[in-house]
């Protein structure tokens, strides 16, 4: 392979370039440009995904020599999975929000910007997100981590409900709060490496430095808080439901599907990869928080009266599983977490977008406004149910593979935590099926009869079909993807210096 072309840079820059073009080309043409851009990125990203298996695409160029910052990109198993997730989700979201520029229902406020802007912003999110997943330099990681907030802020501001401004602000300030605390830690990384002789933000360089426990813990806390906000973990999750409630489902799908993964991604890449000692130190608390998130998110999902809030609370619960897996320190639990990140990306997007279809018809996402929808839109009911079943972790869907591997892996180390977390599978059934029951079954009201006049059209099928297919494929045949992401888990386990518990190490005679 000719390494003279910086392919990873191309991958990251490609959507950004298309984004700029889409900004420049006003109106519907710009929308098409953005879509083509997302397709091109998808093709290229999928190629990279496969090609990265046998090639090392790493790039490393000194960037700001004075502070030891490198423009360093590389792609490991986890990165590949996230790249795949991102490049697939974006075109799907663009199709899903294709009609965003035309006013559909009374509940929809006028869009603030032209048709091209949504696509352009989505591509910008994608580009920045891809850089985050590829960065192997802490500063670079941080820069793109923060950079993603801006287009996301505009995505929330531009379209959606009446209180979207407030929601966007909350999202931004919350994320920024995490981000700035992380900046504190990033500067700490500089201080530590500079103190050790040569300032460097490279993750590998940092991991090689011995430092005092206090510093390690301090940095860990800084990074972890940022990731906890991002991944939404209780108690720093409240921005997500508010945001999801106001933003258009497409934007939320990008947010939850791709951007929030940065949280768990960072925990593995940075917390475990750079600060293994402190990670072990914090494990008890983190595991407790994760378990609380799992149950708490599920309970709040049950009480939600708004479908979008409901789906976002399920994400809080699911992110709890990922964090639990990460901090259980077994190869399988970490692998499971990474796999679950991918699976959750697809399932949450599917569910958000399915809710979006409902919203486009009814102009509302309040559960009370529905009932008996299945009679008029059986296909919509079907895809909602399938997405919901994936969300509740039915075997045969990718989410189950993730959850199961996480919990199985975590069981020997965190028996009590898993024993509590597993109850979320019951709660998941309650929130998904209760919502389904209230929305789709029973006798339709007059409003429902009036507003739900059509089942899924071709475009909507094109949106949800691939997602469901992916969920099923990864559910029945997770092993290929597991092979991809296991590499990261093995590396991380080596860094942390933990070994897997042997069978029989618990409960033997």
């Amino acid at each position: 392979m000719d390494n003279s072309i910086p392919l990873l840079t191309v991958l990251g820059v490609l959507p950004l370039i298309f984004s700029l073009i889409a900004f420049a080309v006003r109106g519907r043409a710009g929308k098409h440009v953005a879509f083509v851009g997302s397709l091109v990125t998808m093709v290229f990203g999928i190629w990279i995904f496969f090609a990265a298996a046998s090639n090392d695409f790493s790039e490393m160029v000194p960037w700001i020599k004075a502070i030891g910052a490198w423009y360093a990109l590389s792609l490991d198993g986890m990165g590949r999975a996230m790249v795949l997730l991102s490049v697939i989700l974006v075109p799907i979201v663009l199709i899903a929000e294709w009609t965003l520029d035309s006013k559909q229902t009374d509940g929809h406020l006028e869009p603030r910007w032209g048709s091209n802007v949504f696509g352009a912003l989505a591509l910008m999110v994608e580009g920045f997100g891809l850089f985050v997943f590829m960065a192997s330099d802490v500063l670079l990681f941080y820069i793109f981590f923060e950079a993603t907030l801006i287009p996301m802020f505009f995505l929330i501001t531009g379209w959606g409900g009446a209180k979207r401004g407030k929601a966007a602000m909350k999202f931004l300030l919350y994320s920024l709060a995490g981000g700035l605390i992380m900046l504190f830690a990033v500067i700490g990384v500089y201080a530590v490496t500079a103190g050790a002789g040569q300032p460097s933000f490279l993750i590998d360089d940092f991991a090689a430095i011995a430092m005092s426990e206090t510093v390690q813990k301090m940095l860990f806390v800084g990074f972890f808080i940022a990731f906890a906000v991002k991944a939404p973990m209780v108690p720093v999750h409240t921005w997500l439901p508010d945001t999801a409630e106001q933003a258009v489902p497409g934007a939320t799908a990008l947010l939850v599907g791709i951007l929030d993964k940065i949280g768990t991604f960072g925990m593995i890449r940075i917390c475990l990869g750079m600060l293994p000692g402190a990670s072990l130190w914090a494990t008890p608390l983190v595991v407790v928080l994760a378990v609380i998130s799992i149950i708490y998110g599920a309970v709040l999902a049950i009480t939600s009266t708004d479908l979008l809030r409901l789906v976002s609370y399920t994400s809080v619960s699911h992110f709890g599983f990922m964090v639990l897996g990460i901090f259980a320190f077994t190869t399988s639990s970490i692998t499971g977490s990474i796999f679950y990140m991918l699976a959750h990306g697809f399932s949450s997007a599917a569910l958000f977008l399915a809710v979006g279809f409902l919203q486009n018809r009814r102009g509302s996402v309040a559960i009370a406004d529905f009932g008996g929808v299945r009679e008029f839109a059986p296909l919509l009911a079907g895809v909602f149910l399938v997405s919901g079943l994936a969300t509740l972790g039915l075997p045969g869907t990718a989410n189950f593979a993730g959850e199961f591997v996480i919990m199985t892996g975590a069981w020997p180390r965190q028996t009590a935590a898993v024993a509590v977390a597993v109850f979320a599978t019951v709660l998941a059934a309650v929130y998904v099926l209760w919502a389904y029951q209230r929305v789709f079954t029973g006798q339709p009201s007059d409003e429902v009869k009036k507003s739900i006049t059509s089942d899924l059209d071709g475009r909507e099928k094109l949106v949800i079909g691939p997602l469901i297919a992916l969920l099923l494929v990864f559910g029945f045949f997770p092993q290929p993807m597991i092979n991809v992401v296991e590499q990261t888990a093995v590396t991380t386990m080596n860094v942390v210096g933990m070994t897997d518990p042997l069978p029989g190490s618990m409960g033997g005679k």
Partner: protein
Amino acid sequence: MVSLLEIVIPVEATGLFSYSWLMIAIPMLVSAILLLGGKATDSWGHWLGVLGVLGSLAVALALWITMLGLPVAERAVHVSGFDWVSVGNLNLQAGLLVDQLSILFALLVTGVGSLIFIYSVGYMAHDPNRRLFFAFLNLFIVAMLVLVLADNYLLLFLGWEGVGLASYLLIGFWQGRHSAALAAKKAFVVNRVGDLGLLTAMFTMVGLFGSVNFTDVNQAVGSASTTWLTALGLFLLLAACGKSAQVPLQSWLLDAMEGPTPVSALIHAATMVTAGVYLVVRSHSIYELTAAASLAVCIVGVVTLLAGAWIGSTKDDIKKVLAGSTMSQIGYMMLAAGIGPAGGAFAIFHLFTHGFFKANLFLGAGSVMHAMNDDTDMRHFGALRKVMPWTFVTFGISYLAIIGIPPLAGFYSKDHIVVAAWEQGWYFGLLATLGAGITAFYMTRLMMMTFFGKKRWAEGVHPHESPKILLFPLIVLSIGAIVLGVVLNNAIQYWLAPPTGGHPHSAAWWDIPWQGWVTLLVVLVGVGIGYLMYRGEISYEQPHTINPIVYIGRNDLLADQFNDVVFVRGGGAAAAAVATLDDVIVDGSVRSAGSLAKGIGGALSKLESGYARSYGLTMVIGAIAVGVVLILGRLA
């Protein structure tokens, strides 16, 4: 104990066995065609659906016949699949295990299934979504076959959840009905509670043995501590309770009768609900090493068999009587499964015969409902034996079978369990015998109210015999109910000995132990009481009752009330409290941090008064403060 355990190592599949997956693939393909084909398949979809299960049945029969020709040691066949998840120490494969137990189950599922499919073609003829119904039914067959053919707990779990899903879809098939939707949800959620058990059991197995494969677990089971094995046994029991509607997770089954009657027959009587028994029998190697868990299984079985009988005795809804009866009969099976190696084969035996006569009873009930404009209240029936002779006869045969009149199927299969119960402990025996008596009572009550006595039909109801397509399955099933007991009485023990670890005792079909006679006597007493009580007038409306026994039975042992108070209201209140906490404290603190910042900002901005002199004052005070800090710094 451990040394007694014979572990069967399955041989790798060759020849016909390598095609076992076809059994699953055929209905899966059919289901996919029906689901994706949409309305285009409306006109012929139901026949394709029948074809699906028939294809499956054909494969199962072929395999069974092949297996009959094999030596016992080669009858357990393993069909390799693919790596599902293999990471770290975790190695999960998907593969099939075709052995005596699973093939028997597969035959039951596809055999009874085929009949019920045929029945459904007629029963659902006027439903606009009949195609969908068959798609779901095929989905169920797929999942059920995965469940019984899996060679490990994980794949079993896939089927386990799959049948749960199919059950959910079919119970709620008439989604416009609020009660159906609620019942479907309830069934799924309660089953999920049971699934917790299976999930934790699998986590534990991986932790203990590093595998969830049946063979691996059987081999390694001796290495684990009894405490963990007991835990494992209890986890599995929890799972079985959920799926098989055993106390305390029984409440969903009665509600599940909201589904179309063929569904009740197939899923909620003949096959799916017995999966819990299958699970316990499959895991016999674990239960053999833990007396406590086995005892728990027995207790659950006994309690449920009585509870089900109790409910059955008080209900007026024909399907709910049968549902209570199903619970009760599965209680027998569970009891047998808990008794150990000797009981395992009997549990499956009863499961098998029960599959036939209970399916027959349900389909008969469906036939009656068909005649009565879908009314299910027995108080509105009466004197149907004359207008529906075929239904009456077939129903009557299965009635005799279920209450255990020799030489019908139910007598033999139940007789073995009662005998085993007596041998396990007199209290189990006594209760099992008592249960048989109650069974006789409520079934007699059902017969009397439905087919005998006077007409109590509602206005405009003109009962008539059902069409042939409905009668054909009834006839076939009732034949099964007659002959299966005698035919299988000994054979099944030998057949199932390897997978259940049992030690068969051969006996002639006329050779009935004393417990059998006692039970028969009790049954006759039950029949007598039933006849006497329901021979006369029966009121059209359900009379109000203050009799606690009747009241509690009618209200499903107050399970719903309990659930309502504890989970719906209690849990709801807890959830509401969490939601308030989230809003007021968690989010509230963030919001108030925001308003606090603004408040402070607002207060501070007042210092910006616009008066130059006050600015000067601020500066001077600041200057003094700077001085103070400097001096303090020096002094410190």
